[in-house]
């Protein structure tokens, strides 16, 4: 007996928003994966569009490299608007 593959399910709550990961289903092919995702994850009106992606098609960054990957960005505070001092009299900018 082979396990049916695992799929990651992404739901868009409504137009204008992104698809967001909400869980997984097992299904033998992409058509059944969409139907399973619909039956499992949209029973309470959670969305109007579904993506399913084979779980093994996702490449993840290595958690061991988390510091190299993400800490260098932390010190670049000049990328944020609050870094710059503008007198209040100038008004909203």
């Amino acid at each position, binding site marked *: *007996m*082979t*396990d*049916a*593959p*695992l799929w990651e399910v992404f739901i868009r709550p409504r137009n204008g928003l992104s698809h967001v990961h*909400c*869980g*997984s*289903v*097992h*299904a*033998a*092919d992409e058509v*059944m994966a969409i139907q399973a995702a619909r039956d*499992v994850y949209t*029973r*309470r009106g959670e969305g109007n569009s579904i993506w399913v992606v084979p779980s093994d098609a996702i490449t*993840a960054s*290595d*958690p*061991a490299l988390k510091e190299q990957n993400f800490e260098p960005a932390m010190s670049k505070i000049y990328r944020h608007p609050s870094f710059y001092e503008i007198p209040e009299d100038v008004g909203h900018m």
Partner: protein
Amino acid sequence: MYAQGLIGADAATTEDAAFLERFQARIDAEEKIEPNDPMPAGYRKTLIRQIGQHAHSEIVGMLPEGNWITRAPSLRRKAALLAKVQDEGGHGLYLYAAAETLGVTRDQMTEELLSGKAKYSSIFNYPTPTWADIGAIGWLVDGAAIMNQIPLCRCSYGPYARAMIRVCKEESFHQRQGYEIMMTLARGAPAQKDMAQDALNRWWWPSLVMFGPPDSDSVHGDQSMAWKIKRFTNDELRRKFINATVPQAEFIDLTVPDPDLRWNDDTQSYEHGPIDWDEFWRVVKGHGQMNRDRIAARRKAWEDGAWVRDAAVAHGEKRRTRHTAALAAE
């Protein structure tokens, strides 16, 4: 639905002290642990066992209530019950998926359930002979489960916590539908009220037992608390449940079957009579009235469904082969 009472979790780890200390520091800082993060083997093992037990409890829990779907006394009740039992299946599914992030497959977990190796909440080894049992399960069993599951939404393991948030959101109607059934019965004809009281009599003690052995006997509680897999002790949750539930019983004029139950003004809490832990362990060890039937029903569904699952996989492979051939021909 499910409540704690982890049985036989072994959280032994072999990592060195520095590793464990770093890990504990992350937990203490309320950082969530995610699937690919380094984690002690014991943490992983404890989670796989706990999430697996939790998932199995949802799946086995479909059976006692599913028993009444075709006999529900009104169409409104039938729809609510069917939706509720379906939710339990969904919750099992979310939880298996959370466990799968730890490197175990759903099929492996299913095999462990069917072989009797994995445990599930022993509450489901009691039968549901009357319609009032559906009310009592929703009110008491789901009520007890919620006490346990709400803190699990803050569990240190991210996928488990996220699954629990979804579960808790969906479960919010379960206890209400159960209590509404009990209230309707309690305010109905004498035969209905008797049915409700009888169900409360049978489900009260098993519900208290759902929180697991008393803190004084709990072997694995401390490590799970330190790792924030568990956030309250068994006795704390049990007390919260009793304090919430006794007034609800009084409101519908049903009697909690505990002659020793009394309010303690000093602790602002109820004190309950002695719990029959021998009975608890008997049921956990497989000697409850329904243990064999529950596993037999799950095994039958799994075995009878094997040809369907095989067909789906076989067809999926054919589809991919044809798709590849079609692309090559272009």
